[in-house]
């Protein structure tokens, strides 16, 4: 554990040194994703000018939902996205050899070697959006609801990580993951625009159980506004556990199956 902590510290330090060489690109991800979520806010501002609620959620709750999705996405960008996203290329090019021969878990190194502090403002912007939503909706926030909210944020950040690793681990088994990654983007794109409470029937099954992006911002938002339940808690934790097991199985099998193209 202590060894892993030191490795993560060194990886972050190295990444900082690398990023400082290209300062213009440092805040690139922030500007890209920041613009995306601000546009999302404008879209819902426009929609709410014609309706009072969507799936039972009013304007303030929807703003919190958008801010929450932005927060989880921001944490993803800061912590692991740029590392995990490189997995398919490393498998295809044989660069994975370098990770397997080092005395450290390959997944741990891949996860944290490309942290992106340039996305930290996105996390701050998200808190701003959430705060704005709380004020707009006149929502009473208690210590307990905040605690539950951050617990859900932690769980959903892990779930997002698991989904990213699962999808990119497919590169161990198939020639190209382009289509699967496109499917992931389509799922995220849809679920950042529509809160899970609006899903019905087959869509609910798909976006709650198969591609669980539908619960990622919905469950934390529900906890903050006091619409959560024990059933939701059990379901959410169950999904994170199941996808966690799936991640471990797929990754380990993939590593065993990996044949370096360079040897």
């Amino acid at each position, binding site marked *: 554990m202590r060894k892993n902590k030191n490795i993560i510290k060194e990886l972050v330090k190295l990444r900082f040194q690398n990023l400082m060489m290209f300062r*213009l*690109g440092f805040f*690139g991800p922030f*500007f*890209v994703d920041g*613009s*995306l979520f601000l*546009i999302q806010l*404008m*879209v819902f501002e*426009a*929609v709410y*000018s*014609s*309706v009072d609620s*969507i*799936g039972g959620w009013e304007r303030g709750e929807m703003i919190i939902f958008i801010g929450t999705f932005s927060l989880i996405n921001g944490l993803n960008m800061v912590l692991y996205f740029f590392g995990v996203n490189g997995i398919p290329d490393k498998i295809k090019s044989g660069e994975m050899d370098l990770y397997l021969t080092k005395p450290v878990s390959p997944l741990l190194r891949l996860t944290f070697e490309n942290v992106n502090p340039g996305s930290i403002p996105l996390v701050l912007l998200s808190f701003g959006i959430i705060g704005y939503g709380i004020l707009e909706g006149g929502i009473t926030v208690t210590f307990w609801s905040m605690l539950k909210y951050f617990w859900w944020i932690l769980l959903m950040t892990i779930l997002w990580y698991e989904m990213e690793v699962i999808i990119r681990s497919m590169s161990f088994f198939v020639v190209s993951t382009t*289509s699967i990654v*496109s499917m992931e983007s*389509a799922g995220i*794109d*849809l679920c950042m*625009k*529509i809160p899970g409470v*609006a*899903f*019905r029937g087959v*869509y609910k099954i798909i976006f709650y159980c198969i591609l669980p992006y539908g619960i990622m911002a919905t469950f934390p938002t529900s906890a903050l506004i006091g619409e959560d339940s024990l059933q939701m808690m059990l379901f959410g934790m169950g999904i994170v556990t199941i996808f966690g097991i799936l991640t471990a199985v797929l990754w380990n099998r993939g590593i065993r199956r990996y044949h370096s193209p360079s040897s």
Partner: protein
Amino acid sequence: MRKYREIAVTYLKAQLVWRADVIFNMIFTIGKIIFARILWGAIFEGKEMVAGFTYHGMMSYYIISSFLSQIEMSGGISREISDRIRNGTFSRYMVIPVKIDRYFLAMEAGVVAFYMVFDLFAAGIWIFLFRIQFVFTGELLMIVGAFMMILLGLVFMVQLNYYLGLLTLKFQEIGTFLMIKDNLAAFVTGSMIPLVLLPAEIVAVMRVFPFYYVTYLPAMLLTGRCREEMAAGLLVLSGWCILMELINRRTYEAYRLKFDGVGI
């Protein structure tokens, strides 16, 4: 003119190689339809009309706008130009006896002609599958006007992306700007929501810019709305196309000497 026709035909034929891409392109038209169905399905619960749209009118708008945004594939042009400038192979386009902007226009025409058939087919499937009572204007003048606008809109987007690609001759990294442009374009062209939902003052400003006429207005015209905006729309969009043509010529002439190509 013949050489540009050949370029278009070559690119049309080249699409046949990437069959999986065709299937995925068709499947991804469904993303916006599902978004519209879930979102507007929830909004229309217990309501007949929202912002002047019936549920089926709204779904028809999304079917058309999704089709239009799917055939607008010029984003790849700026990335192609940018990548080639950065790795020094843009000379490939400089040495052939064609005007580069027209080369990309012909390329886009070939690609769009190919995908249009399949995306039309996909739109038909979604209408049937989601049981949408498709709203489409019966007025010939509006159909002709909308098609002219769609054509001009596609030309404008090619010109814009060509211009953004050329900026790599001046700036080192334009990838971030391109991604921000994609985010903004999705909103201001009306492919996320019909622009009529925005405050009237913002819509009035948007009418001055070309994006309003790329997806939103043609989709509205084809669903039988905004007839009074058609003539002005065609004029404004034509003006922007001419302006972009002039800007592109000037930009290329000003910056082309900055290019250090491989083997030059």
